[in-house]
């Protein structure tokens, strides 16, 4: 038990280091802030869409892009600068390092997610359950952060741009199939089936229900699905990084 607590403390040190170093890196700002902002503007400007209707998608997209923007760049960056070797020389388990990376991505997503949330409060938009939305934001950002770090596991490259590009190839299609721009209930059955494999679907569905009272799945299912995706991504991240770590060091 003591060992576990010690390792968790060391995860926090890794996360704190990531916050200091990576939050202001160019790719993180571009993929985490600029992209979702412009995507949202491109969708909204010139179209007659009620804010209540678009806000669930905006909240989902913001959380998704920001929480997945830090993770893919950390490990390649640290491979290139050889600081990964420094971390691995310290008495920190690989899972604790990965957890630190996930935590720093999670916090970035959570902090930025507060912006659209604050917008709803400023504009006086009614929310059915504020606490549920906060909990949803926490689990969704955790899930997306784990996905972000997972996307850095393969290929074991030391070029951050490579993982950023590959992660974009995964992230953009997910945004389009997850009910961000078109609600899932308006999709054809095959679209709903595809949407069900995206974790973002469950978050936008949850937010839509909390804002507008309508959705595809019960909120409990959304929570469970996000939790299951989080666990699966976290386990896959640790396993995949374990397998590719030797290649990064050679």
């Amino acid at each position, binding site marked *: 038990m003591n*060992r576990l607590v*010690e390792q968790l*403390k*060391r995860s926090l*040190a*890794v996360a704190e*280091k990531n916050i*200091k*170093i990576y939050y202001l890196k160019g790719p993180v700002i571009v993929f985490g802030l600029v992209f979702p902002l412009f995507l949202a503007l491109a969708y909204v400007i010139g179209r007659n869409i009620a804010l209540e209707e678009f806000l669930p998608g905006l909240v989902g997209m913001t959380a998704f892009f920001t929480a997945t923007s830090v993770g893919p760049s950390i490990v390649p960056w640290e491979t290139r*600068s*050889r*600081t990964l*070797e*420094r*971390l*691995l*020389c*310290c*008495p*920190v*388990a690989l899972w604790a390092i990965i957890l630190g990376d996930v935590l720093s991505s999670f916090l970035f997503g959570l902090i930025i997610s507060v912006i659209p949330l604050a917008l709803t409060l400023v504009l006086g938009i009614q929310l059915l359950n504020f606490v549920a939305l906060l909990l949803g934001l926490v689990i969704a950002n955790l899930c997306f952060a784990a996905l972000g770090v997972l996307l850095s596991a393969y290929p074991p490259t030391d070029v951050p741009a490579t993982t950023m590009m590959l992660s974009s190839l995964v992230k953009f299609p997910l945004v389009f199939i997850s009910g961000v721009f078109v609600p899932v209930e308006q999709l054809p059955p095959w679209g709903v089936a595809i949407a069900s494999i995206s974790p973002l679907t469950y978050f936008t569905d949850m937010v839509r229900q909390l804002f507008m009272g309508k959705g595809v799945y019960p909120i409990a299912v959304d929570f469970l699905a996000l939790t299951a995706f989080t666990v699966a991504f976290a386990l896959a991240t640790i396993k995949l990084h374990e397998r590719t770590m*030797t290649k990064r*060091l*050679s």
Partner: protein
Amino acid sequence: MGRAIVVRELTKRYGNVTAVDRISFEVEKGEVFGFLGPNGAGKTTTIRILTGLIKPDGGKAFVAGYDVLEDPIEVKQRIGVVPEVSNAYVDLTAWENLLLVGRLCGVPSQELKENAIKLLKEFGLYEVKDKLVRAFSKGMKQRLLLCMALINDPEVLFLDEPTSGLDVESARLLREKIVEYNKSGKTIFLSTHNMEEANQLCHRVAVINHGRIAAIDTPENLRAQSAELQYVEAAFDKVADLRELSENPNVVKVLSVGNKVRVYTVDPHTVVEFLVEFAKRNGLRILTLNTMMPSLEDVFLKLVKGREAVIR
């Protein structure tokens, strides 16, 4: 004394290449152990296995009493590592780097700050502790790496080419510190290309070549074992015909180096007498005459490249 490092039949393969081939050795507690070898010999791979970075394909290794494979975290808790290439965070300050490594080693907060201040002062970095490492010179980075390796007061220090490419002053400071920390009880595992450094610092050295240990002994014993690499060096006032020297049965090889003649032999005493006779017979004046023991570099070259490469 006990052993700080025990290595048994350690093997590591990368595809078809065997980087480390069933090597075995032991390092006593409090010893400075040199690990010499040409590029690609397996030095860094061995250090990476011993520091828990990569897993071997075979064999066993124990560091500070713990199995590297079974208890890598316990091993890492008791070691400090200075890698070949600087790996401090250049976007953090020296102070932040030290605190980060200290926290990752689980050093309690107050003790960590005290250790960090002490080390930064000791290595002449206290005044620049709040500067980003990006602005540091190579020597400063290397000193910081040693501070980072020492922040958790480790039992064993692994140093991979610590003075490579450093200016004379920084290299000397690091060597002095290595001696100082060794005297305070730390075991030092030193990988180096610098034979003079190994000669000065190491109690024993291992020479690794093509992934296998070619020799392990004290620098003195290694030199003594290579008696054929002893030579007598003489300078004459005139150019002499050296063919007669080569024909002497006690002479292994004759080499002209500038205005000097270098006569390799296992019996320097007889060769000195012979050279004096040779000078008399040929009307030569001896300007200098020295008997030379083989350097560690000579022994190293003999072990890694064979005798012919040395006595060309």
